[in-house]
């Protein structure tokens, strides 16, 4: 898999965020793309066994990131204000309500701007003294002057558990070499987010073509699981089986991925048409998905 044009900007962001003690969790298509690349390398070099043969990952030009909740809880000067300053230093400008930013790419038109979406999970009971949130955004109560928000993402309820770390090697836009790591969500959390996104897409009356990627990402995330991740995912599922946020996840399973002929699987097939990668195994995919989420599907 090739390096994406956006990777130097990711390296730049990760390098500076790490240096300021504000590590990011890379989610979205870019996180999946990098994981797919790392897993393929492990399969080739160390014989890692994946659950299914790996289809190709979609290329992307967006960065979807979470700041760890601990960073939100720090005093602004050490947390979000510091991160806002970093974004401004790197040339990011707020495009939407201090939760979506763009960074112009030198010499290229604005359609090639780097887009950064910041997300945050819903604050838990003990965190709400410092954080405010609504359906759209999460932010500090005391961040007047240097606001920074995360898009409220209820399905990211498990974003902090079992974080994984991927190697990130390359050069930043200035050509400075970098060799480090970037955190990504555990497959359990990734699956919850992508299942919900796929459900939102399928239920939408006016479907956006870009939304079809979510069902495919569910397939890819499942395919990449190794045995340890599979067992961890089942364990996390048992822990969160009765969480309120699980409801849309189980609805997504029933509506979209019950069998290989359900709408989510049809979307996967349509998405895979242009893919020259491994053939799909939807029978096993749907079977495993239900095994993974079995504790939430069982009656209480």
């Amino acid at each position, binding site marked *: 898999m090739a390096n994406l044009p956006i990777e130097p900007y990711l390296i730049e962001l990760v390098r500076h965020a790490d240096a300021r003690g504000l590590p990011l969790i890379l989610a979205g298509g870019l996180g999946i793309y990098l994981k797919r690349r790392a897993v393929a390398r492990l399969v080739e070099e160390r014989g890692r*066994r994946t*659950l299914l043969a790996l289809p190709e990952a979609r290329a992307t030009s967006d960065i979807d990131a979470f700041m760890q909740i601990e960073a939100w809880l720090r005093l602004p000067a050490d947390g979000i204000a510091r991160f806002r300053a970093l974004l401004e230093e790197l040339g990011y400008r707020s495009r939407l309500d201090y939760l979506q930013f763009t960074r112009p790419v030198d010499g290229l038109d604005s359609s090639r701007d780097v887009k950064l979406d910041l997300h945050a999970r819903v604050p838990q009971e003990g965190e709400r003294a410092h954080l405010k949130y609504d359906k759209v955004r999460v932010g500090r109560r005391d961040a007047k002057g240097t606001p920074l928000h995360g898009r409220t993402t209820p399905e990211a309820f498990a974003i902090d558990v079992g974080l994984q770390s991927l190697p990130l090697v390359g050069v930043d836009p200035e050509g400075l070499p970098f060799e480090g790591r970037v955190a990504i969500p555990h497959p359990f959390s990734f699956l919850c987010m992508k299942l919900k996104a796929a459900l939102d897409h399928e239920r939408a009356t006016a479907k956006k073509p870009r939304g079809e990627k979510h069902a495919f990402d569910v397939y890819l995330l499942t395919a990449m*699981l190794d*045995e340890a991740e*599979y067992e961890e995912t089942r364990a996390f599922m048992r822990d969160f089986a009765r969480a309120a946020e699980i409801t849309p996840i189980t609805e997504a399973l029933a509506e979209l991925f019950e069998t290989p002929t359900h709408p989510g699987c049809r979307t996967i097939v349509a998405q895979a048409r242009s893919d020259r990668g491994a053939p799909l195994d939807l029978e096993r995919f749907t*079977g*495993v998905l239900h*095994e*993974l989420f079995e504790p939430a599907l069982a009656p209480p």
Partner: protein
Amino acid sequence: MPRSHPTEAEILRALAEGVFALGPLVLSLERAASAPGGAGEVDGVVVAQWREGKIHRRFALSVRAQWSQRSLDVALAQLRAASPLLPLVVFPYLADDHLVELERRGISGLDLCGNGVLYDPPHLFVRCSGSPPEFRRSATTPLVYQSRNIASLVPRVFLLQPAFTAVGAIQAACHRRMAGPEEGSQPLVLSTVSKALAQLEEDMVLARKGRARHLIDAERLLANLTRSFTTPTTTGHFLGKTALEPAELWRRLDALRPQVAAVVTGRGSAGHYTGLVGPERLQLYVSDLDAAERALDARPTQAFPNLELFETCDHAPYFDLRAQGGVLWASPIQTYLELAHGSAREIDTSHELQARLVQQAAGGGPT
């Protein structure tokens, strides 16, 4: 529905009734005997014509109701003794491997389904194949080789011990090597063994001297078993995971015997006999799926399964088991047959095992 198997008289009548074609050739029966199989005479003369009749060849005809090496040899000997014409043998159906055999021996042959080979080097060579049989399968695939039939244990035992003094000794040798569940299944009785032997003699893989039989063509026997092999009839399937260590797993399976039989599948045994790396999970044939599943504390899963069970009460998978280190491996014969019907790599590896089986049958050592 396939037609019933025609007699030799019916084949001759069918040939006499019409003109038929094989590729560009037009064939007709010029002269027919009043009844087929007459001593010292041919069953007829067939004329093959092409280029609008400008060129033609005549063949001495013999009709045979069933393909076998012996019937082909007998027909050929009769034709060569009775006529100077090129020999042509007609069977109800010729499969691809029959056509290959005819070609190898330079004999012309036809069937009633549109397959055949006409051979008169260097002037004529026509081969037509691919037409499906119009007759019942038993006409072309003797039961004795069909792996789901208990009679197929008889040819298998000759690969392990190439000579016997009497039919009873063959039956006893089979019984000694049978480990399958007996309940509800048909035992291997003496009459079945006798019928199997008759077929094996007809196919010239065995020779008889008084009451004794000995193997004369291990390669052909193995080829016939391979051609007729089908995977065992499964009545249940389980894919899942067990936390048991191999020694404990086999101890528990052993405790189920003799009520429940269990053995590693042929494909799963590949690594035991060859350099091929077998399936990642343990694959077993078991005669009682529920009992085995319970005994092994297995839970079903499609994710990273380490155990796969196939429930079958066929006899062949449990025949000639090899115990080593507490594990029951499939017979090398079963292993060879499953590999020979597997992936390209497995087929490739099966040749190694095939050579060892043939060598062993010829007295060249254990497999």
